[in-house]
């Protein structure tokens, strides 16, 4: 891995490489460069995940000509494709170095903090949503029970906006969550369930299922589950799978006419 990064930097295929290095024992994102090539020796994989692609996006906004290498998990690659599909970045400016992440028998190791068991306890079990992250696990609960549990989860929200702020594919200049006409401001929890449903709708067809939002959530709202659910609807209705290809775009997925009928969305 270090050799590849060194070669890329030396040969000029990239100008900068975003990876990790240890600072006082903590994996911290670091930008490696040709000028400080000796630092590449410190390059490390990291169990802790930071939105490197969001940092790269910010760098490209400052200098669209810079070429950036990224230490990338599967989810990083999906969000790079989504950012490209939404014309936020030029794919040609990004070169990814894949790292082992999601577990598979074909791999030696899996580097993802998400593989840690979610914390659970008796109160969470009786009031919260199932923490498996699988929308099907929730369907066994009656609709009323699901509603009760979601309302419990949303009432915990302290309105940090961390779900949005860490999201690698949240890039809107004006955010609906901060729109005065949509949302009462200055109170916690934010309007239940409106705040979270507005974001969920926005994540439909956008969310790359990286789970960074859920990791950043101070109060353990199962956001990944929520966005999986809405993304599932988009996949079912339109056959659009977020971040899978470059060809399908959110701009053409609906075709010329929208097949949306309100009556068919009652589940």
């Amino acid at each position, binding site marked *: 891995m270090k050799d590849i990064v060194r070669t890329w930097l030396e040969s000029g295929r990239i100008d900068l490489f975003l990876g990790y290095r240890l600072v006082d024992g903590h994996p911290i994102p670091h*930008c490696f460069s040709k000028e400080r090539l000796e630092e590449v020796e410190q390059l490390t994989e990291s169990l802790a995940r930071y939105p490197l692609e969001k*940092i790269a996006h910010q760098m490209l906004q400052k*200098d669209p000509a810079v070429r950036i290498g990224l230490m990338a998990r599967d989810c990083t690659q999906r969000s790079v494709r989504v950012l490209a599909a939404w014309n936020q970045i030029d794919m040609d400016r990004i070169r990814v170095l894949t790292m082992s992440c999601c577990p598979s028998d074909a791999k030696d190791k899996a580097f993802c903090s998400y593989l840690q068991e979610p914390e659970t306890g008796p109160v969470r079990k009786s009031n919260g949503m199932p923490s498996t992250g699988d929308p099907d696990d929730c369907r066994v609960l009656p609709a009323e029970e699901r509603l009760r549990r979601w309302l419990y989860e949303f009432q915990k929200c302290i309105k*940090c906006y*961390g779900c949005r702020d860490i999201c690698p594919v949240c890039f809107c200049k004006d955010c609906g969550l901060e729109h005065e006409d949509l949302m009462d401001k200055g109170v916690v929890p934010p309007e239940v369930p409106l705040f979270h449903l507005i974001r969920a709708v926005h994540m439909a067809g956008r969310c790359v299922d990286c789970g960074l939002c859920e990791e*950043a959530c*101070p109060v353990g709202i199962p956001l990944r589950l929520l966005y999986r659910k809405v993304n599932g609807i988009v996949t079912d209705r339109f056959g659009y799978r977020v971040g899978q290809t470059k060809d399908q775009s959110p701009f053409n997925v609906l075709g010329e006419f929208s097949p949306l009928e309100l009556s068919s969305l009652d589940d």
Partner: protein
Amino acid sequence: MDCRLVPSVCSYCGTGCGVLFSVIDGTLVGTYPIKTHPVNEGSLCIKGWNLHEHITSPKRLRNPMIRRNGQLQPVSWDEAIQEAASRLRTVVEEHGPDSVGVLTSAKITNEENYLAQKLARTVIGTNNVDHCARL
């Protein structure tokens, strides 16, 4: 282009959350939680996530100032320090060291607090040192 991520600590409340400042070409552009920090374990509140915004605010003071003809006017550091020192000295000479009060700060670092109370106690010569712990 240069991009750096610098570990630090949030300066709002007393929790002491670990933050990463994201700096692109010498400009502070963002704040992230340190994922592995013992205090906040990868989360922040609304203030923490926006920590960089007050630092880059255009309202920041950029120059020392002295009041002249009733108005605060930008001056050099030498002028500001000299003005403060000579007027402090006058007050101490005329009214004694206990006529000076120093309010140190719950916002600045330990090192700076240490220096501030040391200045009050050894250079001015008073224990009139306090800060807003009560507020």
